């Protein structure tokens, strides 16, 4: 346990520190050397890994934890995503998980004493074919029964919510309406990682960066520790939370996973004054867009058609996405792409995540979030912590176990969203 809790952040601490030209701030987290042994080692200091450690310490009283990270914390998909948060999912098990997460986002800044800038500005998913309209209406009914508030917005309402959308009935794919979740939105991705890291560190968790796991030690079908670039670390339980690298880690543990790793890209424009107050997703034409607080249009689209670990983009998807968005938002044509990048996402056969025990005793996996796991960071950490602590999945996590693939118990959301973010 850390001896001394960190001083809290507030406007007052900011004012006080400004007197000393901000020389007095403490570190947000320590840079500890690995101890020889921990009760739990979490591999991967992305949002999900850090949240898992935080909830293990906070909700389950397990504080002898290391989160080991091969690079810098938050540097995987957590720091690369387009930060859309929504819970208007069709299937009951998805709705439960994503709404748990979305609701935790509502109070996360206060919980972590770190402004993660959750901005429930609303998420609008456009319907541009009759078929898509029926699919969103079905989702709308499903969310109502799951107590998740959504509205069906007709074309006129779409224009009110978002004036820059092209609602010309003569458009190539005219806007027939949309599914509107007013409490969906965005958050600052880095801040989510940093906030969890700082809070976990405060509870005694060792967040160890530049520490890559190279091997997983087992004895008699049970995990005993990991080999890392900073030496061997023993552990009672191991949580693997490494997104696109999952199959590399599970190879080390000697079992295979139903996952594919593919690049997913995003891009931003140069910053401009506010013109888009919500998140818009247009699945028929394949693109989505929001505007960051800094003023950049944040844009994303589909995944590349091949497997790779490169964490960089190709141009084809940028072209497809931007073309779709110029058509949907004609005013953006003269704006410019500032930067594009990619992340490696781990995709399952039903595009739903895996939170599960594994064939190796003591090894747990949290993966398969694919293109849409940022929004689940809190919920995922919450129920993965419970799963690790109890050795069995909790009620929310249970449907997402690995055996669903051998049983065929798929949780398929692709029906509701061709671009699943």
């Amino acid at each position, binding site marked *: 346990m850390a001896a001394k809790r960190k001083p809290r*952040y507030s406007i007052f601490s900011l004012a006080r520190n*400004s007197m000393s*030209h*901000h020389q007095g701030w*403490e*570190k947000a*987290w320590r840079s500890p050397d690995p101890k020889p042994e921990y009760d739990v080692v979490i591999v991967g200091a992305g949002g999900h890994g850090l949240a898992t450690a935080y909830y293990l310490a906070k909700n389950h009283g397990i504080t002898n934890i290391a989160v080991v990270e091969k690079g810098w914390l*938050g540097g995987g998909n957590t720091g690369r995503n387009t930060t859309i948060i929504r819970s208007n999912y069709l299937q009951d098990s998805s709705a439960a998980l994503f709404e748990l997460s979305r609701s935790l986002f509502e109070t996360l800044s206060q919980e972590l004493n*770190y*402004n993660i800038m*959750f*901005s*429930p500005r609303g998420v609008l998913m456009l319907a541009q074919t*009759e078929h898509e*309209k*029926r699919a969103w209406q*079905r*989702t709308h*009914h*499903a969310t*109502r*029964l799951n107590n998740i508030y959504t509205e069906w917005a007709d074309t006129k309402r779409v224009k009110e919510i978002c004036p820059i959308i092209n609602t010309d009935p003569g458009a*190539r*794919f*005219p806007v027939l309406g949309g599914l509107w979740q007013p409490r969906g939105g965005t958050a600052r991705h*880095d*801040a989510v990682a*940093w906030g969890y890291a700082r809070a976990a560190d405060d509870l005694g968790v060792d967040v160890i*960066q530049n520490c890559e796991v190279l091997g997983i030690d087992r004895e008699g079908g049970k995990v005993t520790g990991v080999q890392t670039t900073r030496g061997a670390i023993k552990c009672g339980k191991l949580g693997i939370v490494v997104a696109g690298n999952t199959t590399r880690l599970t190879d080390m543990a000697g079992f295979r996973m139903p996952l594919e790793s593919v690049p997913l890209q995003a891009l931003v*424009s*140069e*910053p*401009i*004054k506010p013109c888009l107050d919500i998140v818009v997703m247009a699945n028929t034409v394949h693109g989505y867009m929001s*505007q960051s*607080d800094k*003023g950049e249009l944040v844009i994303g689209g589909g995944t590349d058609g091949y497997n790779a670990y*490169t964490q960089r*983009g190709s*141009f084809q998807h940028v072209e497809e996405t*931007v*073309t779709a968005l*110029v*058509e949907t938002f004609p*005013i953006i*044509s*003269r704006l*410019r*792409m*500032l*930067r*594009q*990048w990619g992340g490696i996402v781990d995709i399952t*056969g039903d595009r739903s995540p895996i939170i599960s025990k594994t064939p190796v005793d003591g090894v747990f996996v949290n993966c398969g979030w694919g293109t849409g796991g940022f929004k689940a960071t809190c919920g995922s950490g919450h129920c993965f912590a419970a799963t690790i602590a109890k050795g069995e999945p909790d009620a929310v996590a249970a449907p997402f176990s690995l055996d*669903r693939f051998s*049983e*065929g*118990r*798929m949780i*398929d959301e692709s029906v509701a969203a061709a671009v699943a973010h």
Partner: protein
Amino acid sequence: MTQPNRLDDGGVLIDRSHKIKFFFDGKPYNGHPGDTLASALLANGVKLVNRSYKYHRPRGIVSSGPEEPNALVNLGSDATHEPNIRMTQIELHDGLDATSQNRFPNLDADIGVLNAAASRLYPAGFYYKTFIHPRHAWKYLFEPVIRRIAGLGKAPTHPDNSQYEHTYAFCDVLIAGGGVAGLVAAKAASEAGARVILAEQTERLGGRLLVDDDAEIDGKPARVWLEETIAALEAMDNVTIRLRTCCSAAYDHNYCLLYERSGDRGEAAQVRHRLWRVRTARVIAATGMIERPIAFHYNDVPGVMLASAVRDYVKLWGVSPGEKTVVYTTNDDGYRTALALHEAGRTVRAILDSRKDPSGPLVEKARAAGLEIRPNTGIGKAKAKRNKLEQIETVNFDKPEAPGKTMYCDCVAMSNGWSPVIHLYSHSGGKALWDEDAVMYRPDPANPPRGKDAEAMVFVAGSANGELTTDAVVAQAAEIASEALSQLGMKTSAVAPSVTAVTETTTVPVWCTPSPGKAGLGGKHFLDYQNDVTVADVALAAREGYESVEHAKRYTTLGMATDQGKLSNINGHAILGKTLGKTMAEVGTTTFRPPFTPISFGSIAGRETGNLFKPVRQTAMHDWHAAHGADWEPVGDWRRPYRYQRGDEDRDTSIHRECLRVRNSVGILDASTLGKIIVKGPDAPKFLDMMYTNMMSSLKPGKCRYGLMNNENGFLMDDGVVVRLDEETFLCHTTSGGADRIHAWFEEWLQTEWFDFKVYVANVTEQYSQIAVAGPKGLELLGSLDSDIDFAAVPFMGMAEGTVEGCPVRAFRISFTGELSYEFAVPVSFGLALWEKLHAKAEALGGGVYGTEAQHILRAEKGFVVIGDETDGTVTAHDVGMSWAVSKKKEDFIGKRAMERSDLTRPDRKQLVGLLTEDPNEVLPDGAHGVENGKAIGHVTSTYFSPTLKRSIAMALINGGRARFGEVIQISTAKKKTIRAVICDPVFYDKKGERQDV
């Protein structure tokens, strides 16, 4: 309108014989052809051009190129409005009307500047530490305010009417950059016979050689060599030179983007921007270097500029940004600027050199010219008056606390050494190495980006590789070019030019100039001008644990402005290293991401906007439908007639007429959009047995079979009628939206799994028009046709070939309406003719056309499923009651094993049923769910008012539904509102199928 800062002579780029009138913030000014907006404003003595992002501090022009962080303006209005353009890249043209941005009400009196007074409260990352309470204030109060303050230029409000286009090119060597290195490389490559594209982002070739012409090349003055070389290249057939064209990105597999701003100069250009996609065997990045600024207290006041930029303005545009300039340098090159100013007759107040003992030819030359040189000295702080530089105070590096000397000046030219532009090398994975001696990142030759042949794909030439002097640049460029060429098996006959250049010693950089007195701690030593990131911010990030270079960047926003850190990154990383006690190599660098400079979204979309965005695929009858009242529905890339409207009747009226016409007389439907895939070869039967759940190998030639397709998970993904044309040839029909997907799916299996199968697949969807004729009077209609086919003799699920009214047809006797029905396939050129014939005959019998919605209702009356309506990727053939279509005999087919998994054989799975509302006039909403004890038990998949049955009907997937016929369930349609409906057989009409199989 005089131009006070225009020098009397010089300025190789401008044409003094012409004047151009332009506007900045509504005020008229004069410039010359060849000016940039930046050079013209400087010529006019305009110093203040913008306000910074966070503190709204007054800012001036810093650079002369694409690295400019400050001088961003708006151009145009309405449809031509464009924010955030760098003045240094705007070529002056008549009527140019630029306005400053990010200020209110105007540049001189911006009220946002209040911010700066309280700036102590806003260190890096302050927003993470505050605005936490009360919870809702972030959304409703803080965020909206922050958003309004942030952002740079205004968002456009109108659609853009300009034209953009894409073009494609192939070459052996793509050279990025038309400076001396690029030209030497181009010469070598062209003389080796390579196809060469040379892209230069500015409107001129020559790069820095136009400014720094103190070298001799091949015994000639640099300018003469330049002219000769350009002329020689222009004469080569295998060389394409594009100016105003930036090599923006180098992607995997030797795929590069060139962004050509051909129409950005005011005149009505046909094409505003052209985006080139180039596949090249090799890239030679001869992209030069960018000078680094120096951090000192208030180094951001308008008038503080890069030394190289000051020299550019003097030599290229005949402009001296200041009357009195102080040069602050850490290397020899800064002296060139002092000399240029001196030669132009302007005052060089002093040269402050951080080095203790500067020496070398350039230093000596300055000395000889009588310029004051102060070694071991820097600028401790700058001071502005009325938003421009008024004076600086020097600082002695050994005695920083001692009071410095005040020097009045209106310009500072600073030079902190150079950073090679290695972006293209890095875009697709090339690594950079920190060179401690040269104080710069250089490309790591051991870790280049590799192309499709696994060889190095990008080579870096000249100063982009870290070479400082012209002789080294030329020698290295020639060498790297021949290395690249030899990889391609080519050899150049070009001899590397011999160069005599002035020698220079390397830079001794200053990452932060110490400031005397108070400025020490509270100083504003700017690193990233646009984002207002200071030395203190980076140091704070390091102290707070944001130690990784990426953390520091993201926490402070260093390098995240629109210049993407071109000026700020290295200085910032050095500060991070200093604070953490790490070397530059240990600190590492952030990743360069494409594009090099921003590219317009318009250019990315190219022509694919409006009608050309995913162009509508049209059947042969498309115009006919339009002329007959078609109300369109987008289906895949097609549009299909949803219904045919008469006058202004409502949707239901048309649809019901069309339904009843099929039930009572005869209707015709354009079914051309159905996917049609030919599968041919000796292994075609075996292949289709794998692709479909049914047995296809047993199908007899001339017969049709309705088939279902699974994905690997055992769920339905498509359906359609398969026709065996002959032993080895099958015609597979798919859904309208599915043709391309299924074609790709077939190919994927053939190419990756069963590459040994002798099968060819061809998508012939657009080669045939297809017309359905359905209804009890169908045979009568067909009987009246001039045809050699005996239609009555064609059995249900049979096929006949022949001619109908002179058109070669295939006729399939298949039905998706439940009525007696034939589908005709004709080559697309006959489609309209046959359609018109059939339409006339149908009308004569009291029938006519029907659209997709009528088709949907008719099939729902019969309980036929539509893939995508009744199925959603979680539904099996058993779930929809089509176990009969799943072969039990076949050893294997896609999804067979998956279908045997425990969850797919559960008896209480959702199953397809019919629903009849208790109130026959109440139509259930699409997608509504059945509920029991507050839990969903399934959902409505299709729902209509059936004109045939004169009541509402619906299909639904309900948990264990097939065992529940006759039960009443509640369908929840809104909060607290439910509708009662009886579960029934999904076949509502003609359960025995007597009508289709007469």
